[in-house]
């Protein structure tokens, strides 16, 4: 098992550092082209024409807003006219001392960790199951992705109707004779965050399964076949051959899942709204940002919260990258078939 994963690491793609300078290795194997003098300008023109539109839109609407947020974060600003009331780091001091923000941060951390712990094993199991040849397989594959395709608004509305105290969930428990299990699923602070986790799992596990299925397809079938000819059972094959080879895909998914958890907004805001979420114990940094920034008319403060979220995400991303993804991210995310 170790030897396989070792091989895998040294195999087709060199280790790459995704965020930092590693990107030049990530796209390191483009076709070398002879460049006769005199046509250089023509190639440069082509490159500019090809990358120009994407680059302009991306810089203007992704990079620039983040820079703008950093700037406005130092002001107390109601969102209209030029920002003149410079308050230095006061916004940041307020944020880091504000109980509701720290609560939200704690909820984010809890959601991030528990999403990994719950969704990871479930999704790997489902992907292995769906990767087998079985009758009705293609139908099941489509069905399991249905929650991922449905919008957060629909999911939020549907689940909040089902989970409200007079809703279908309690009704069903009553019919099953389990009335003692009835709960205030959404408003009881001890239960609400678990309801949220259940909804998140239901909604996003399909995405993990999609990624894992794609990863499984990249594993040569000969390996498992050879092993099963040598007498390995189905589960031995999965555990000793398939899972180690799926490692890079799992680590990418975990990365995306953590970042997604830190930015969670839609579901919480739709189900609990901006005020209830902090009482029910499901508020997140993003709902805090919207409630205390835009909705409160304090745009400077909202921008400062955005910057804090950005820095937390960046730190987590860099750490994750440094310690977990370094060996194989680029292999899985970028290098592809080089």
């Amino acid at each position, binding site marked *: 098992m170790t030897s396989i994963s070792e091989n895998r690491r040294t195999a087709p793609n060199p280790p790459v550092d*995704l965020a930092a*300078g590693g*990107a*030049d290795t*990530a796209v390191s194997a*483009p*076709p070398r082209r002879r*460049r006769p003098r005199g046509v250089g300008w023509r190639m440069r023109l082509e*490159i500019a024409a*090809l*990358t120009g*539109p*994407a*680059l302009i*839109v*991306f810089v*203007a*609407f*992704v990079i620039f*807003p*983040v820079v703008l*947020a950093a700037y406005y974060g130092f002001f107390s600003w109601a969102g209209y006219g030029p920002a003149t009331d410079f308050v230095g780091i006061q916004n940041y001091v307020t944020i880091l001392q504000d109980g509701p923000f720290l609560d939200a941060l704690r909820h984010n951390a809890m959601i991030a960790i528990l999403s990994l712990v719950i969704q990871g094993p479930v999704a790997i199991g489902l992907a292995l199951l769906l990767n*087998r040849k*079985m*009758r*009705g397989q293609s139908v099941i594959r489509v069905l399991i992705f*249905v929650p991922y395709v*449905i*919008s*957060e*608004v629909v*999911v939020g*509305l*549907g689940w909040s109707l*089902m989970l409200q105290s*007079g809703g*279908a969930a309690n*009704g069903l428990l009553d019919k099953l004779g389990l009335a003692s299990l009835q709960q205030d699923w959404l408003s009881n602070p001890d239960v609400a965050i678990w309801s949220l986790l259940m909804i998140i799992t239901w909604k996003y596990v399909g995405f993990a399964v999609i990624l894992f299925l*794609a990863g499984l*397809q990249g*594993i040569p079938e000969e390996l*498992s*076949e050879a092993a*099963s*000819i040598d007498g390995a*059972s189905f589960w031995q*094959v999965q555990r000793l051959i398939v899972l180690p080879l799926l490692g890079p895909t799992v680590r*990418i998914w975990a990365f995306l899942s953590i970042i*997604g958890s830190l930015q969670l*907004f*839609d579901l919480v805001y*739709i189900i609990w709204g901006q005020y209830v979420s902090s009482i029910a114990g499901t508020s997140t940094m993003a709902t805090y940002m919207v409630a205390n920034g835009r909705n409160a008319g304090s745009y400077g403060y909202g921008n400062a919260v*955005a910057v804090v*979220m950005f820095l937390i*995400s*960046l730190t987590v991303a860099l750490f994750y990258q440094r310690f977990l993804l370094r060996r194989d991210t680029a292999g899985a*995310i*970028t*290098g*592809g078939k080089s």
Partner: protein
Amino acid sequence: MSTLTPRASTGLVKPDRHTKRSLGGPAIYFLALILIALTLTPVGYIILGGFRTNSEITLDPSGFPISWQFGNYIDVLASNVFWRQVGNSAISATVTTFFVVVFGLMASFALARYNFRGRGAMYAVFAAGLMFPMTVAITPLYILVRNLGLMNTLGGVIIPQIAFALPVTIIIMVPFLQAIPNELQEAASIDGCSRIGFFWRMVIPLSKAGVITVGILAFIASWNSYLLPLFILSDEAIYTLPLGVQSFASQYSVDTARVLAFTSLSMIPALVFFSLFERKIVGGLTGAVKG
């Protein structure tokens, strides 16, 4: 078909050589059935609820429709509001998808097949975008869109959506385009085909699977997008479906059955779109997420 699990077969029969191909035992099907039930119950609740009356829903929230009411669905389908929102969502999603694919494919082609200074840095910039979803930038984005005078226009939603969909698109497309054999390009160039001609005649047809994947992802993301329209669109006439569903739900909060009918109709397009292309998506991601 082999109904024996490999474990049960040891000692009696030789281990099943075709484990992976076997149709699996009844346990697998049972598991699959539970899975489908868990996945579909909430969706079924929404769809079936639209066929019930409000008093049925209040008395027995988890029941099936007793007398099938089509009125809720017919009302929604006959309302201008619903179709206007479908129209807004369709425009927004189609235009977004078109530009994401065009811009993304062009940039990926340059990143994958041209050798130029700053290529690595440019790729790193796009890849870094993957780490930061829209949530972080939403407040300044709102200010930017407002300063551009795009508030309450679909353009104000579409342009940022294109920008935020580019990182995923480029990360999926670059490996695809790199995989096109160099010999093909050389052959084309011997035949007098320029780099750009090669792009039009060879690259676009060859990268179809990748294009479909990124196109679907962009379409669904745009169709379901909530946060950005929430900030940019405040005029009901320009609402997209997610905003419309939410405002309908708060407006008719007593009329649960009608809300459920509205909700279930709103999710049909993305579902149809996805199920048509599901196979292609898994295929398209395989290039990007090669395990």
